[in-house]
């Protein structure tokens, strides 16, 4: 049995401690917003927050996050999250959308730490999140837009 604190709830799950957090989130808890893209921490589609830090859930063992707060796209909230999602809507960032949960989670983590990121800061924080539709132009613009929204 593994204890998991996720999206504000305590869950006790009958899974092996070395199961990747991603598959616990998706297959055990039925939270499908967090996506599978590579399984090797190379694409960022599976990004969640662990104690507020953007983390790739596909290589994170569920047993290792006991005692930490896991937040998925379904429950991400607060000023930065609201600003990011509003900016994403406004600029119509998405295309296929599959990577965007991860992009949003990484962007929220960035803006929570650094409310006025430079282009370089954005590159550093977001280059772990692959978008095969290459919506990068709009991701960059939307992060700047979200920073403005947070100031307002």
């Amino acid at each position, binding site marked *: 049995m593994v204890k998991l604190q996720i999206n504000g709830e305590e869950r006790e799950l009958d899974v*092996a401690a070395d*199961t*990747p957090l991603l*598959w616990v989130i*998706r*297959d*055990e808890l*039925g939270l*499908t*917003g*967090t*996506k*599978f*893209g*590579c*399984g*090797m921490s*190379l*694409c960022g*589609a599976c990004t969640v927050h662990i104690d507020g830090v953007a983390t790739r859930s596909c290589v994170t063992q569920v047993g290792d996050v006991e005692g930490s707060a896991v937040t*998925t*796209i*379904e429950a991400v909230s607060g000023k930065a999250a609201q600003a*990011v*999602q509003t900016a*994403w*809507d406004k600029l*119509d*960032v*998405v*295309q*296929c*959308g*599959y*990577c*965007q*949960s991860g992009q*949003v989670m990484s962007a929220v983590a960035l803006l929570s730490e650094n409310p006025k990121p430079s282009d370089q800061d*954005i*590159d550093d924080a*977001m*280059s*772990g*999140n*692959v*978008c*095969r*539709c*290459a*919506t*990068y*132009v*709009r*991701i*960059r613009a939307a992060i700047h837009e979200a920073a403005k929204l947070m100031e307002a």
Partner: protein
Amino acid sequence: MLAKYFDSENSRDLQSAAIATTVAPAPTRRQFLVASAAAGAGLVIGFKFTGGNKMAAAAQADGFAPNAFVRVAPDSTVTVMIKHIEFGQGTFTGLSALVAEELDADWGQMHPEHAPADASLYNNLAFGQMQGTGGSSSIANSYQQLRQAGAAARALLVQAAAETWGVPAEGITVKKGVVAHTGSGKSATFGELADKAATLPVPAEVTLKDPKDFTIIGTVVPRPDSPAKARGQAMYTIDKTLPGMLTAVIARPPVFGATLVTFDATAAKAVKGVTDVVEVPEGVAVLGHGFWAAKSGRDALEIQWDESTGETRGSDQMMAEYKKLADKPGDVARQDGDAEAALAGAAKVLEADYEFPFLAHAPMEPLDCVVQLGDDTCDIWAGSQIQTIDQAAAAAILGLEPQQVRIHTQLAGGSFGRRATPQADMVSAAVSVAQAIDGRAPVRLLWTREDDIQGGYYRPMYFHRLRAGLDADGKLVAWQHRIVGQSIMRGTSFADFMIKNGIDQTSVEGANTLPYQIDNVTVDLHTTDVQVPVLWWRSVGSTHTAYSTEVFIDELAEAAGKDPVEFRLEMLANHPRHAGVLKLAAEKAGWGEALPKGRARGIAVHESFNTFVAEVAEISVAGDGTIKVEKVVCAVDCGVAVTPDQVKAQMEGGIGYGLGAVLHDAITLKDGRVEQANFDTYVPLRINEMPEVEVYVVPSSEAPTGVGEPGVPPIGPAVANAVYKATGQRIRALPFALHGLSAA
């Protein structure tokens, strides 16, 4: 990827051949839009209602449904049945806009939804009687059809209002979803009129708007799928769950064409959660409760393969063989004048070889498919790109009629061509797994990223040899283009229609359609015999032909002592739309203006799928030789831009997708084994490499053409030409990474 190769005549043949015995449900009363696709750019669509007494009643739901595409609910929601899969390219937005325009709906009330698989209603008019998405054809083939569907719904709402209010229909206006009569001051929503509209006969004819009266087409409308996708709420195939569903992964042969000898499932079955290990035509499937169990089970599987039947060559060896073939003439794809004689008489002759690797599509959502078998039914949830073929393939495996196979098309996390195989590989594999467990439980088949990268269906590897001659005045007088590579279509059910006189059109398009005015042109082709499964990849033949032709033209311009833009324009007098985008991109990019040290520009122009795109790439070269594509200026002529912001988005995305491939990507084989496996070795473009992009859309009243693919072809040659300008190095073998050119 398909549309341009079909005309109405052969697509009917294709239907009967490709899916013989399997498709052809009788046309229903609802099939009132009759299309005849003309060869070439435009579609001529007749609009014919069957049965003048047809009532606009909805089949089941409340509200009304005047045709197969539009439903108006009592709450005024307008559901648009979208016949083309949404995988990012914006069909939900574009097709909804066509309906909303003629319906005079409010954008906020539009609700796109994937149509079911039913080729009698939802066929791609450019494919004949086949439902499917490809060839950047969604908007082009729907432009008249969905406007007419919207106009018919509007006419019924107006008639319903006229009868309800006892006023003449002529005095009624519709604006942003409100039907109003100024004289009487009456107004109503669509929902309020829906019941009455459902009792009225569908009009025999409708008049479409004059484009000058458009209020939605040509404007920026928000994507209806944006909010859900930014909040993790959009549902894809991988997210589908059914009671009792098992997850499956398949162990496939280590080399293409190898066969299964035997397997030992003992260790796999010992993995907690694994339920079944079964043989399927694709390999050995491991099923279990959840992905992790299935995947762990597969890791524990012991399999013996017979590789003697497989493809054991390396890609280097194949390329060497291709190169040798290029010494001999191939099957002629185009012949104007006498290129050989003109070369012999030319003042200057240039020759260059170009090499293109296999490429994987690598959509973000790895391939996946959910199947549930019933007694005489099969339900499929998938990002189905050619529903009619997927439906036929599933039916053939199960011994069902195609109508017994229901496909629930899901949003897909990208495709770039991968989800459209003539072999229906994705759906067939999942159906086979479900069948192997006798339909005991619904099955969700997943591909891992490694399965995706190593699983074939690549853009083929190609070798090109170009020779051209200039006369003493620097005029291009001879052009010889030889292409060597695999045929995408050979061996598939499409072969009879897409291979003519030995020429697979997908191998030579963009080369045999070279637009430049040259008196002597030969384009020929050697089709090679290789067991690696190959497939169209976003912009298909133009992925390689645009590169070799546009880089070679740049070499020739230099040899002729002319500016690359001027050199091209002199030869484009008969191709005003090529010339138009070329001039526009050059002007907006400040072509010819001085740049800071270490910066250079390159340009390329290419037409694909009847859309014309020119791109100017501006690059920088750092002290350590690292190159960065700083900015791309793009001009696109796609006829009427239905949703201009989505045109822009597709150009941005096409540029990024194409750039990633030319900078980094190659699928290589060693002893038949694919050397790449995941995003560490098959390197995707990341945000730090994405250039700034400016897109200019040429104002046009021509019929709209597609934008999903045409942004891709020019970026490679534009960047290569800029790299030459900056470094003196001509990149003739892709990717750039082979040449020690790293990108920042």
